[in-house]
C-alpha cells in the first residue's frame, strides 16, 4: 500500500480514536520517519524511553507494528503496519460480517480478540470461564433476591453446571456463550474460516525484511553468493517465491493442528493441552475477502435483483473457502511454470444447489414473465449455438469438489467474452433429470440465475466447464473499479463529464477538435467540462509542440484519461474526507466536553436519564447524532476506498 500523507494521518487519527494518544504519537513519528529504534523515536517525539516502551508494547500487542532485529545488532527497528492500522476503521464491518456468517456468539469472541490483540487461546478460555462463572453467581444471587429490579431478567436454574441447557423461554436472556465447549467450537469455526490465524515467529517481520532475509539465505546457496545467468535467475526467483509461500503457510499451522483432531467429539478438549499455548490474532486478509463477497453481492443486487444476488452470494461463499486474500502478491505468488500455478477454484451447480436454502424461492427475480417461458427460450437459444467447449464433460470433475487440473486448464481457455453463448446446454438440463420433478425445476431456475450472471457485461461469473462456475476476480474488480470511478466523476462533474471520460478511455489521447467531432458537443461546453475535470484530476493534458520551437499557441493539447491517476486522486480525496470527519468529531468533542466528561462519571454512567439535566441531555443527544453521522460517513467513504484499493 502506498502510504501518502493523508493516509498516514488517517491511520494516526484512527489509532488515537481507539487506543489513545500515546500510541498515536509514536505511530505518527514512525510513519513520518520510517523505521526507527527507540533512541531515534525518543529524539523525534521528545518522549522518554519508558513512555516509548509502553507505547510500542501496546502497538505490538495490537499487531500494528513490524519489528526487526539485525543479527548482532542490539537495537530493534520498529516500523508501522499501515494495513492493520487502516483496517481498524473497518472493525464495525468485520464484526457485522462475522455475526452474519457465524452468529452473535462468534462476533462476541471476535470482538474480544480484536480488543486484546495477540491472544493466547488458554487466556481467552480462562477469561470466558471467568465470565461464565460470574454470570452463574449473579444468576444465583438474582434468584435469591427474586429479581428486585424488575428489569425483565428471567432467572432460571443453572446451579453451576458447565453447560446449562437453555429453555426456549429463557434463551433470550441467556449469555451468548454459556460453556467452554461452545467457545471452543466458535474458536474452531473462526480458525477454520481463516478469520483467526496463528501468530508465528516471522509474523512481525515487515514484508521487505522478510524478503531480504530469505533472499540472502538463498543467495548463500549459490557459488560466490551471486546468481548468474538467466536460467539461474529464474530458478532463484522461484526459490524465493517458494520460501515466501512456505513462510505464509506457517500462520495456518493452527488451522492444520485443529483439522488433524477436528472431530466434533474431541473439540471440547481441544484446547486443554498444548493447543492452548497457541497465540492467535485476527486475519484481516481473509476478512477483506469476506467483505469483498458482500460488496460483490451488493453489486449483483443492483444489477439483477435480490434473488440472483443471493444465489451469487452463496456461490461466492463456496468459492472463497479456498481464497485467502484479495490480491496476489507479485513476488510471493510468482510461479515460474504455469502448471505449478494453483488451479482456480470452481463451484459446480450441484454443490451450489446443496447449500442454497430451500426457503429461497428461485423463481423470483427472473422477471415478471412466467418462469417456464423464460427457461424455454433460454434453452432454445443456446441449443442453436452449441459451442465447442460444452462437449468436454469430465465426469470426475463433476463428482470431485476440487476439480482436477486438466479440467481447469480447459476452463481457463474459455474467455469471459464467449460465455454468453457457451452457457446453457439443452442436453445437460435433460441429463440432470434424475431426481424428482421439483428438484429439476429448481436446478433449472438456479441455472437461469447463474447464466444471467455470467452473461453480464461486468463478468460476474464464468461458466468454465460443464456445470462448473468460477469468478475471475481480477477483471471483475477492475470493471467495478471503473464503474466506481465513473460514478464518482458523474457525481462530481455531471453526466457530460462521464461521457467525455468514456470517449477518452476508448480513443486514447485526443486533440480538442477530435474530441469535438466525436462528442458532438459545442466547443464552449466541452472545453469548460474538460477544464473542470482537469481541475479535479480526472483528465490530464499533454502538450505536443508542432515545431522544434515550442510555441504555446501552435502546440497541440491532447486530452487523455489515466485510470490510475484518477484512482489515486479519488483515493486521496477520500482519505482527506475521512480525516476531516475525524477532526470535526474532535472539535465537537471539545465543544461538548463538560457533558461528555459527565457521562463518563461512574455515578452517572448507565443512568443518564435520571442524573442528567435536560439541557445536558439535549446536548448529548445532539452530539451522539452528529458523531454517528460523521463516523457513518467514514464507513461509506471506506466502502469506496476498499473497492478502489483493497479488493
Amino acid at each position, binding site marked *: 500500500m502506498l502510504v501518502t500523507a493523508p493516509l498516514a494521518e488517517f491511520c494516526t487519527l484512527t489509532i488515537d*480514536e481507539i487506543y*489513545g494518544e500515546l500510541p498515536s504519537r509514536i505511530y505518527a513519528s514512525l510513519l513520518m520517519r520510517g523505521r526507527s529504534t527507540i533512541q531515534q523515536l525518543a529524539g*523525534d517525539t521528545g518522549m522518554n524511553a519508558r513512555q516509548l516502551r*509502553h507505547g510500542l508494547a501496546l502497538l505490538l500487542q495490537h499487531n500494528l507494528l513490524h519489528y526487526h532485529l539485525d543479527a548482532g545488532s542490539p537495537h530493534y527497528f520498529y516500523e508501522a503496519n499501515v494495513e492493520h492500522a487502516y483496517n481498524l476503521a473497518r472493525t464495525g464491518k468485520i464484526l457485522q460480517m462475522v455475526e452474519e456468517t457465524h452468529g452473535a456468539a462468534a462476533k462476541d469472541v471476535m470482538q474480544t480478540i480484536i480488543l486484546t490483540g495477540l491472544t493466547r487461546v488458554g487466556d*481467552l478460555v*480462562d477469561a470466558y470461564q471467568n465470565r461464565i462463572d460470574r454470570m452463574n453467581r449473579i444468576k444465583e444471587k438474582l434468584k435469591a433476591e427474586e429479581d428486585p429490579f424488575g428489569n425483565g431478567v428471567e432467572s432460571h436454574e443453572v446451579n453451576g453446571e458447565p453447560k446449562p441447557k437453555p429453555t426456549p423461554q429463557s434463551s433470550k436472556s441467556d449469555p451468548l456463550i454459556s460453556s467452554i465447549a461452545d467457545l471452543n467450537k466458535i474458536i474452531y469455526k473462526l480458525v477454520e474460516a481463516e478469520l483467526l490465524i496463528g*501468530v508465528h515467529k516471522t509474523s512481525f517481520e515487515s514484508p521487505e525484511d522478510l524478503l531480504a532475509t530469505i533472499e540472502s539465505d538463498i543467495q548463500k546457496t549459490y557459488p560466490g553468493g551471486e546468481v548468474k545467468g538467466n536460467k539461474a535467475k529464474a530458478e532463484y526467483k522461484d526459490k524465493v517465491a517458494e520460501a515466501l509461500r512456505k513462510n505464509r503457510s506457517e500462520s495456518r499451522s493452527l488451522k492444520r493442528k485443529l483439522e488433524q483432531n477436528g472431530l466434533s467429539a474431541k473439540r471440547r478438549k481441544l484446547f486443554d493441552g498444548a493447543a492452548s499455548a497457541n497465540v492467535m490474532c485476527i486475519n484481516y486478509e481473509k476478512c477483506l475477502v469476506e467483505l469483498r463477497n458482500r460488496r460483490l453481492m451488493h453489486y449483483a443486487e443492483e444489477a439483477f435483483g435480490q434473488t440472483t444476488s443471493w444465489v451469487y452470494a452463496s456461490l461466492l461463499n463456496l468459492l472463497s473457502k479456498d481464497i485467502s486474500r484479495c490480491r496476489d502478491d507479485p513476488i510471493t505468488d510468482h510461479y515460474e511454470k504455469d502448471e505449478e500455478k494453483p488451479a482456480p477454484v470452481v463451484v459446480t451447480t450441484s454443490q451450489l444447489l446443496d447449500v442454497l436454502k430451500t426457503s429461497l424461492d428461485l423463481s423470483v427475480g427472473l422477471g415478471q414473465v412466467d418462469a417456464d417461458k423464460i427457461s424455454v427460450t433460454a434453452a432454445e437459444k443456446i441449443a442453436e449455438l452449441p459451442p465447442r467447449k460444452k462437449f468436454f464433460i469430465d465426469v470426475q470433475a463433476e463428482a470431485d469438489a476440487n476439480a482436477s487440473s486438466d479440467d481447469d486448464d480447459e476452463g481457463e481457455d474459455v474467455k469471459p467474452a464467449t460465455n454468453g453463448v457457451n452457457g446453457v446446454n439443452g442436453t445437460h438440463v435433460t441429463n440432470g433429470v434424475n431426481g424428482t420433478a421439483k428438484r429439476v425445476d429448481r436446478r433449472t431456475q438456479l441455472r437461469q440465475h447463474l447464466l444471467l450472471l455470467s452473461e453480464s457485461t461486468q463478468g460476474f461469473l464464468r461458466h468454465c466447464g460443464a456445470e462448473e462456475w468460477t469468478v475471475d476476480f481480477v477483471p471483475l474488480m477492475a470493471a467495478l473499479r471503473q464503474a466506481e470511478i465513473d460514478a464518482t466523476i458523474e457525481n462530481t462533474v455531471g453526466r457530460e463529464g462521464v461521457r467525455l471520460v468514456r470517449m477518452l478511455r476508448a480513443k486514447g489521447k485526443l486533440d480538442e477538435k477530435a474530441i469535438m467531432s466525436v462528442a458532438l458537443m459545442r466547443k464552449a461546453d466541452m472545453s469548460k467540462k474538460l477544464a473542470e475535470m482537469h481541475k479535479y484530476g480526472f483528465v490530464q493534458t499533454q502538450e505536443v509542440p508542432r515545431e522544434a520551437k515550442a510555441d504555446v*499557441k501552435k502546440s497541440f493539447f491532447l486530452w487523455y484519461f489515466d485510470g490510475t491517476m484518477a484512482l489515486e486522486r479519488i483515493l486521496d480525496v477520500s482519505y482527506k474526507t475521512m480525516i476531516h470527519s475525524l477532526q470535526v468529531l474532535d472539535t465537537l468533542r471539545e465543544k461538548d466536553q463538560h457533558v461528555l466528561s459527565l457521562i463518563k462519571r461512574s455515578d452517572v454512567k448507565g443512568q443518564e436519564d435520571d442524573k442528567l439535566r435536560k439541557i445536558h441531555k439535549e446536548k448529548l443527544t445532539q452530539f451522539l447524532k452528529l458523531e454517528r453521522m460523521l463516523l457513518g460517513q467514514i464507513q461509506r467513504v471506506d466502502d469506496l476506498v476498499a473497492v478502489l484499493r483493497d479488493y
Partner: protein
Amino acid sequence: MFRGGRGGRGRGRGGPMMGNRREIAQNSVPWAIDPKDGIFIDGKPSDTYPVWNVPKPPTLTKKEEKQLDYFLIFREQAHDSPLYTEPPPRSKDSRKRAYGQAQINSRYADESKATIDPFTAIETYSKRFERKKRTLPDFSNLPFAKEFFPTELHATLDGLDDPSADRKRRRTGPKKLAVSNITSYGAGDLDEDGDEVNGEPDFRKALELLDNVEKLDGEDAFLSGEEDEWGNEDEDNEDAADAEAADQYEDESEDDYNAEQYFENDDDDYGDDGGDDGGEGVF
C-alpha cells in the same frame, strides 16, 4: 464600451490597458485563440456569498447502522481497557499550526502549574466519580505472549518498567485476561425506540447493572471507581480486594500525572531513579 464580455476579440489588443486576466487567459489556453466561439470568461467578481449546494448524504441503512453500533461499542470497550491512555485536556492554542517536530511535541507537554484551570483543579467530592485518566498503559494485570515481543519490551509487559518499582511495592496482580462488560455506547437510556443498541439480548445489560450492585455491597469498592472492571473479576478473592485497596492508596501518593514535579524532574529517566523523592517523571 465593451467590457467584461467575451475574450478573444482578436490578437492585436495586447496593449498595456488590457494586460488583465482575460488577456492572460487568451494566450495561455488553446481554445481562447479561436475568436468565434472561444470560452466565455466572466470578468465579474464572484458573489460574496455564493449559493453553495451542499450535498447531503442519504441516511444510513440498517446494515450500516449496525456496523456503526459495533464500531462504537468496540471503541468504548477499548477506551475502558487498562491500555487506553487518555490525553490531559489541552489548552486552546494547541490547535494552532505547528512548524516542525519540536513545536508539535511541545503541544503535548503544556501541563504545568500555569495551565491548571483553577476552577476545576480543586479536589471536590464528585471527583471521586470521575474516570481515572491514564497517561501510560497499564500492562501489569494482563497476560501477554512475550515470546513475540522484542526483549527490550519484556520488562514493560511485566509491569516492571517503573524506576520507582524497586523501592515501592510493585503493582502486579494476577495476570488475567478479561472480557469487557461494556455493551452500550452513549446514553442507552436516552434512546427513544428503546431497542438494545447492539442487538444483543438484555442479559449483559443486566449483568452490568448487577455489577454495580455488587460493588455497592462494599461501599469503598464502589467509590474507588471502576478500577476492578478488568483484571480482578473474582470478588471472592479477599487478597485481591486488599491489594486493590492498597493500590488505590498508592495511586493517591504516586500519581502518574503529577504536574508539580514536571519542572523539577524534567529529565527523562534513563535508568537513574535516585536523587528525587517520589521521583517519577511526568509525561
